[in-house]
């Protein structure tokens, strides 16, 4: 359970930092009169949707941290046989990076008000994400074709389950992206609104890219090597 505990420690750190700016030491029973009546409510200047997405990403991060925890705990048992990492995963990783870059370009274009570039970025981002999903399916097919079935070994089970869960999250993101794209072409085109949606999409994409890096490192076995080194250093 160490991965999830480290993750929660990070969350607790962020929450603690935020709380420390919220006047937890104030004495509300003494706050009256003109001077004290309107302390800063500290409602962040951030758009509500962004805060919402931030909280949601924390939940998603928690989910994958738990998968990683389960992965490490199951890995220590004797029947674990690591499976080879198909080279295609490298290509998929590249495609997903491209997808993130395209959305980042769309964000920059949206800030500059270049609607054509925004459209280009969004569509490229969407298509590359679809390509990533297709690539993942090919990886699944190749693996099972070479005998690495889901139920044959827990390492395989985790591989299919975690990549599947990641893919589902990308799929969900694609729904939001499709709505953003239709907003970019739609008749009721509102630059402010579009910029926010593009930013939200990019934020989600970057996060899922980060999750993918972590998942890749985990499934390739490097994370376990890293932890072994840490353990040796500690003992």
């Amino acid at each position: 359970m160490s991965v999830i505990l480290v993750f929660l420690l990070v969350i607790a750190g962020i929450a603690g930092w935020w709380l420390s700016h919220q006047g937890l030491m104030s004495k509300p029973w003494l706050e009256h009169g003109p001077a004290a009546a309107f302390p800063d409510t500290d409602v962040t200047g951030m758009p509500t949707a962004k805060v919402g997405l931030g909280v949601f990403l924390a939940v998603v991060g928690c989910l994958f941290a738990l998968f990683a925890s389960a992965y490490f705990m199951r890995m220590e048992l004797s029947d674990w046989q690591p499976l080879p990492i198909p080279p295609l995963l490298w290509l998929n990783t590249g495609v997903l990076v491209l997808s993130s870059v395209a959305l980042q370009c769309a964000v920059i274009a949206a800030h500059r008000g270049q609607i054509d570039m925004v459209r280009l970025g969004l569509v490229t981002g969407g298509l590359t994400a679809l390509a990533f999903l297709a690539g993942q399916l090919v990886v699944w097919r190749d693996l099972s074709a070479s005998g690495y079935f889901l139920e044959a070994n827990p390492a395989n089970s985790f591989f299919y389950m975690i990549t599947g869960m990641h893919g589902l999250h990308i799929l969900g993101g694609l729904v939001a992206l499709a709505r953003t794209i239709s907003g970019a072409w739609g008749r009721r085109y509102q630059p402010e609104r579009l910029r926010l949606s593009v930013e939200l999409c990019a934020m989600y994409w970057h996060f899922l890219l980060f999750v993918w890096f972590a998942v890749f490192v985990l499934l390739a076995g490097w994370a376990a090597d890293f932890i072994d080194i840490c353990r040796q250093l500690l003992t």
Partner: protein
Amino acid sequence: MVDATHGAVDVIPPAEVPEVELYHPHSWWTKYVFSQDAKVIAIQYSGTAIAIGMVALVLSWLMRLQLGFPGTFDFITPEAYYQFITMHGMIMVIYLLTALFLGGFGNYLIPLMVGARDMAFPYVNMLSYWIYLVAVLVLVASFFAPGGPTGAGWTLYPPQAILGGTPGGQQAGIILMLVSLILFIIGFTMGGLNYVVTVLQGRTRGMTLMRLPLTVWGIFTATVMALLAFPALFVASVMMLFDRVLGTSFFMPALVEMGEQLSYGGGSPILFQHLFWFFGHPEVYIVALPAFGIVSDLISTHARKNIFGYRMMVWAIIIIGALSFIVWAHHMYVSGMHPYFGFFFATTTLIIAVPTAIKVYNWVLTLWRGDIHLTLPMLFALAFIVTFVNGGLTGLFLGNVVVDVPLSDTMFVVAHFHMVMGVAPIMVIFGAIYHWYPKITGRMMNEAMGQFHFWITFVGAYAIFFPMHYVGLVGVPRRYPEIGEPAFITAPVENLNAFISVAALVVGFAQLVFLFNLIWSIWYGREAGGNPWRATTLEWQTSETPPPHGNFGKELPIVYRWAYDYSVPGAKEDFIAQNDPGTGKTATGLA
């Protein structure tokens, strides 16, 4: 001491929170069924939770009938008994308590108490309820599936949960249970995002975090915890679903069943226990923290006294929330863990008693020399304090490894957790319903029926669970439909079991009076007016009762003070509303 009622505000700063565009319903359907209004969603959540809770109540009767009078009822087979305990536990903990506190009270109270027009994302909020309803329907469907619902115990421990020997293990029961849990968690996450973000972003002018009523603090912290803890149950459910449906071996060791070697091998049931209790222990506080918050407000309002140690109360809520994530393995002392591991978790478990005790002291000190009105909400709040202390003290027993090991899996544990996370939060739910009912419907609930309900429930709950501690100490194990006649079972134990069962039936029937009152009072209750309890918080200051869509009138309220200005010396009335600027209305005769 600063004069609390004095002082004009010269400059009112502009709104920091922009006016939201409310979704305006156009038809009956979008107004009352697919509504995006948090108050309607709250009532939908509560209604569904209470309805499914009644199912769980009936299941508990059936269990008690079997335990009190073994062998009398033919239709309660051991398999059926296991199904009853499983569904009773799961429904009560997740589909009733969690949904009612967060989905019900959270939805109703958060926007009103922080001074918002609605939740941050009303559409997602609506989806949250409908997914919850589907989760409940899937759960109910398992009663009608071939083989019936799962009988794995509410903890669903593998490997037995998905084996043929357990009811529903090799049939649809366990699958429906897991799917229902997964749906519940997805739906809850949607709602939880709303509760958190609304508290973060939706507060009206002047509503600092430290001016929030403790109800909001409790629900807010519990929601944050739930958002971080439910994924563990999600992961455990998905992995078990894989084991059951796709034949993986995450949790399943090599097994021989009925002389036949199963295809599973190498998995770890302990892994499931870790994941389950990583959710399961925070879950206790997910239920308890909203109760803590609500009870603080009930006590303060009905004792006409400011809450004692508001700051300490807030800190305690936060500390309890954080600590509850590092105590989970105290549910696993008998799983063969390393002794140092047990030592660590026993220590953290006992430390959590400190902030909890601070809260109890503060409630008692709020009551001290207060002007206590023994209204129905107050009675239930007092019952909560007593029950929570009782249940908490046995928690100290069970938190110690050496005491826990012999008591583990006895009725003592059942009595403990029913006291602390069954009866105590339910008391708060009742108190809260009696308290906020006038705001929700505009009418008071019937006092006589309420008194009857309170005394039967309170005394009855003790009649059920006090003897159960003794039964457990004697050594009666839990989860046994029938214990036969081992040497340690003496006549008193059998008599006690029968007594407990009768008490459980009586208490159960008293709840029907409550339900009747709940419906009857909508039409025949006494007119309540806008603020019958003369409370300070914003939900009582709305221009209309029940509050309309959008909660407040044209202007959002502006908050000038904290939520607990009761019996302020020199004030005209014994309470000053949070949105009372302290001039004009109350200025006469002051300064």
